[in-house]
């Protein structure tokens, strides 16, 4: 369990810049929680504060009930992947992990295990200098898994990964959560989070915009529009009209229907012998909903749902 309460970070002296503004949230075990926001929203800063690398200006955060630096074996509590590379390029992958393992008395066999898990066994002896972005990410994840921690905090883990790597991360995160671990993963891509996460914490300009489930976000963001192409657009629109239904039309013969589903539209058309050339549910607006939400963060001072939900 990760808890942040009133977490605030300001930089600079005379005209301070607020990177994280009074952030309060909880991340529960057993699910993947997506930490979502545009670039510069304060995700990385928040994660660094969780890990004790940055000190909050005010507020506090705990992992497993304690501040990160109060754990006697932090690597067994929290595994972290930071956005900025935190690996010496002159050291081999194996020795990088072993040096970290030594601080906790973690044996070599575990180092080999995580190398195997992340598919790095063959390059373990090579200096990190020659690693691709994706291999570097894998090594960062190997380091996060080293202490078999109950909590994972990963900052943009899919950055630089090929599609196979993205899928691997997705499955890894889901598997870790299924084992009862707490998983917090940041991203600036709604589409990626929709596939990976169960829960969403959305931030913009350092503020909490939403603390909700993916399911609810999808529902609330009104993605249920359906595109209909028909020669009898006017007649169909009349038939579909109702208090909860909105119908718009950009081009003649094309309707965008909100408030009802494709099945109902199809049956209505069939019942009245109206030919349909196209009947397409529009799912692409999830990303749009996210962008609308974060577009001008200042307007959204109230989260979609209670902050401490």
């Amino acid at each position, binding site marked *: 369990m990760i808890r942040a309460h009133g977490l605030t970070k300001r930089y600079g002296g005379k005209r301070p810049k607020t990177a994280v503004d009074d952030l309060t949230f909880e991340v529960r075990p057993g699910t993947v929680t997506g930490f979502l926001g545009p670039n510069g929203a304060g995700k990385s800063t928040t994660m*660094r504060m969780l*890990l*004790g*690398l*940055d*000190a909050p200006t005010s507020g506090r955060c705990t992992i497993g009930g304690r501040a*990160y*630096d109060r*754990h*006697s*074996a*932090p*690597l*067994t*509590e929290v595994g*972290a992947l*930071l956005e*900025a*590379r*935190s*690996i*010496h*390029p*002159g*050291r*081999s992958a194996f*020795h*990088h992990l*072993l*040096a*970290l393992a*030594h*601080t*906790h*008395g*973690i044996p070599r066999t575990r180092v080999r295990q995580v190398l195997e898990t992340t598919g790095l066994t063959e390059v373990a002896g090579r200096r990190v200098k020659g690693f691709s972005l994706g291999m570097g990410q894998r090594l960062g994840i190997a*380091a996060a898994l080293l*202490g*078999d*921690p*109950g909590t994972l905090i990963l900052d943009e883990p899919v950055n630089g990964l090929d599609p196979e790597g993205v899928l691997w991360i997705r499955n890894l995160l889901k598997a870790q959560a299924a084992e009862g*671990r707490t998983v917090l993963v940041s991203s600036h891509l709604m589409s990626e989070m929709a596939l990976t996460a169960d829960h969403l914490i959305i931030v913009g300009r350092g503020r909490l915009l939403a603390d909700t489930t993916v399911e609810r976000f999808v529902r609330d963001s009104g993605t249920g529009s359906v595109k209909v192409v028909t020669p009898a657009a006017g007649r169909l629109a009349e038939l579909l009209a109702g208090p909860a239904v909105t119908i718009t039309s950009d081009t003649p013969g094309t309707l965008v229907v909100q408030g009802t589903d494709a099945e109902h539209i199809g049956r209505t058309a069939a019942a009245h012998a109206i030919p349909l050339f196209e009947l397409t549910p529009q799912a692409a607006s999830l990303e749009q909903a996210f962008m609308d939400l974060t577009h001008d963060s200042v307007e959204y001072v109230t989260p979609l749902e209670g902050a401490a939900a």
Partner: protein
Amino acid sequence: MTGTGYRVTPARVLRSEWHKLWTLRTTWITLLTACVLVLAVGIAMGTTYDGDDSDVDTVVFVLFGTQLSQICFAVLGILVTAGEYATGMIRASLTAVPRRLPVLWAKAAVFTTVAFTLCLVTNVITFLVAQIWLSGSDKELTLTDDGVLGALAGSAAGITLMSLIALGLGALLRSVPGAIGAFVGSILILPEVLTTLPLDGIDTVIRHFPAQAASSLGSIERVEDTVTPGTGLLALALWAAAVLAAAALRLRRQDV
């Protein structure tokens, strides 16, 4: 998920830092270069000696190369700390050891041990090898002669503590070029500039500066215009302690 005897202890942090030091190619190159330079210069001094430099202290004479190795050790000290900031490794190090200070102490301890041992061994070997050519001259001495071992060890201690200051500067400034600049500027050049100032007692003050204090340590006979070896060692140790304390303060307080 919770540990099976896994926890951070000072001994484990030491082991980690020891491992980190030896798994970088730069460490081997820098240390090897330092030792070879001292030995090579020592051999050159021994083979070319014709009695002209008879007023120079014998240990100072055979260890002229330490002026070069000093730079190598100082650079390595800076890389040990500032190098982690340059590469971002520091974030991994401090995530593993979030109490932070043990990392700095372990780095200082590992580096001091390695540097002192290596300097001492190199000094002794260089002295013995140079004596092959110096026997029969007025610079013929053995290890057991009065003050020889003390001077060889003193030289090693001087280089080690100077490099420890460099390591502290690296941790304090968090930048490799910055720390190298600060080391060269404040430790090597600043005292030379200050001596030109017409101030009473400035010479006495400068004798306690790191490089000047270090120069009192590596000779059999007391060097002119320097403090006693005991005072020199104390002064140097205090400088190193002060820089490390400042570095510790910044490490404790500031975001990484």
